[in-house]
């Protein structure tokens, strides 16, 4: 692909219509094959829209009703799609969307809290559902969700922090579970979880900052682990943790910005993992989120701990001491 043909500015209106059209592609097989991600996808799309300054681009009432249709009464949580099973991932997505729409009153908060708290294991880590898969991702999800619901005190916070601490590796990073290799996405969830718990003393900021800064490749993109390829989604995972550690200046923001912009589809909108690849709403959101952290002009501030609009988190009194780059003026 010719470098000159790659986009160098954010194609906001294309991305807005790309996200708006996602829910309308019911004649596309891929749409149905991704039903298990539906609530996540709405959260990703909506967050990107908020950050791009188009919070009203989706039909709010339709979205809320869809979330309600994903409620699983027996379990007290949310499934990704009606008829599917409950999972902590989708439960967080539902909460995040409702927070952005200021509509938490539409769900049974005490039951949701009970469901989430029930997933904490004796070791302190959280499971994703009743079948018991554990992962530091789920711990972050639980902490994020409970803090948004104002019920953080109902879980064992020390236990959770202690488990995360045991996942820390000598390179400063964190893995999925005890013994696992450091991975940028797990670094994000562990550092953000510790930030919410006010336990950042468990992070070796200089070592982790070093490891994170070495994720940047000569083309500007970031990878998830040493000697791997770059990918737009890692832009967010890495930047989020760096913002929390006040280390974003340790990488070349300009080159990263150019890399993310080069991954846009200039015809149909959306952002992909690498230039020239198929776009999806996941990479679109994390690309836009990363650009916001990098101070890209015209975007709304993003809270890197929650991956939600900063003003909403601030209004709830949950803002932590992260440090994004100053927003540039066009």
């Amino acid at each position, binding site marked *: 692909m010719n470098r000159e043909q790659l986009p160098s500015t954010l194609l906001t209106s294309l991305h807005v219509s790309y996200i708006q059209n996602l829910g309308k592609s019911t*004649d*596309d*097989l891929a749409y*149905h*094959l*991704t*039903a*298990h*991600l539906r609530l996540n996808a709405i959260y990703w799309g909506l967050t990107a829209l908020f950050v791009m300054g188009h919070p009203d681009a989706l039909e709010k009432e339709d979205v809320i009703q869809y979330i309600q249709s994903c409620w699983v009464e027996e379990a007290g949580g949310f*499934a990704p799609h009606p*008829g*599917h*099973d409950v*999972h902590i991932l989708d439960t967080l997505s539902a909460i995040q969307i409702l927070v952005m729409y200021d509509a938490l009153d539409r769900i049974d908060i005490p039951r949701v809290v009970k469901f989430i708290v029930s997933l904490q294991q004796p070791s302190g880590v959280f499971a994703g*559902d009743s*079948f*018991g*898969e554990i992962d530091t991702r789920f711990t972050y999800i639980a902490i994020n969700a409970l803090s948004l619901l104002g019920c953080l005190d109902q879980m064992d916070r020390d236990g959770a922090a202690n488990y995360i601490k045991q996942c820390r*590796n*000598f*390179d400063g990073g964190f*893995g*999925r*579970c005890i*013994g*696992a*290799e*450091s*991975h940028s996405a797990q670094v994000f969830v562990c550092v953000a979880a510790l930030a919410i718990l006010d336990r950042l003393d468990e992070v070796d900021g200089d070592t982790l*900052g*070093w*490891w994170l*800064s*070495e994720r*940047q490749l000569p083309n500007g993109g970031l990878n998830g*682990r*040493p*000697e*791997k390829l770059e*990918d737009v989604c890692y832009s967010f995972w890495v930047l989020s943790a760096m913002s929390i550690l*006040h*280390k974003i*200046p*340790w*990488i*070349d923001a300009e*080159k990263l910005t150019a890399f993310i912009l080069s991954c846009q*589809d200039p*015809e149909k909108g959306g952002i*992909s*993992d*690498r230039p*020239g*690849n*198929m*776009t*999806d709403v996941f990479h679109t959101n994390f690309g836009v989120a990363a650009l916001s952290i990098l101070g890209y002009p015209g975007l709304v501030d993003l809270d890197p701990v929650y991956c939600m609009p900063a003003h909403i988190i601030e209004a709830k009194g949950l803002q932590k*001491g992260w*440090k994004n780059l100053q927003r540039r003026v066009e």
Partner: protein
Amino acid sequence: MHNVKRVHLSPEAIAAKKLREQSKIKEYLALTDEVVAKKKSNDWSRDTLDLTTRILRINPEFFTAWNYRRNILLSGIFPERYRMTHPKVYWIWNHRRWCLENTPSGPEGNLNGWRQTNWDREMFVVDKMLDADSRNFMAWDYRRYCLVNMPVPRPETAELAYTTRKIEANFSNFSAWHQRSKVLSSLWASGKLDSSKSREDEFELVRNAMYTDPNDQSVWIYHRWLIGGGDDKAILDREIGVIQELLDEQSDSKWCMDSLVHYKRLLLKNHSSSLDVASLQSECRELLGKLRVLDPARQRRYEEIGKISYISVVQRYSNDNMAFLNVQGHRPFNISFNIASTLAVAGRTTTA
């Protein structure tokens, strides 16, 4: 989507694709509806198990069907086996794990028989997965899980040999170095391996890798683990010498310089009483200056480290500022200016 090339289709081609997909969508949605309906009616039959097999072949990400499958299996239908055609789907690894944990006991006299057979097969599958993609972290996690939980454990030395093979096949495989660090930590802690001798072997191994390809960061990260907190001054001195020699041969090596700075700072931190602090400081400063030019993307990090080095000197000599200035004698004014600005930065960093 990960690793899927964007294709530009004409409107006609898109229409044709949609038409082709019509029947598939119908079929898939009918299958989904059937699974959801049977699940609702608590149908735990063999036929339904086969039904979940069909839908998961089409869409292994449909985790609800995995859950359903587990409930059917719990109701008493035999163990199962799968081909791993989707090595990056979380749910499949998760399901394999569940199956292992829920394997019934074997016949009397060989209670672990069935389990051991299953676990051995799992290790075989994991080996195959890691042959296909040696960085698949789900496979590595699963491997660690199997090693810990096998009814008849494998010796850890066998796992050490496995990581040697993986590293010899491709030493950019940081996953294998990581695993090696975990296995060695455990062997050293249990006393099954003499840690000082074995550590020397590791230095030898990693030295060969760093001379072969000094740009490979997995090697340097592992070396940093071997050095650890830098308590052993003799090892630090020797490794600094080895890296300096490599830098002399490969004068543009960023990782040589970055590691030298790190290890020299460890010397300053842990062993400063027996060192020429000033010259080490100035060596670090010089290296950091070169790194700023060589690796501009991370220049701010090198600047901050440089400032932190000053601070540690300031703290050491805080009772005798003149001594410090004498040590740095050649450009005292400039230096003190730096100290002032650095302290300001440090103040901001620590209070933030």
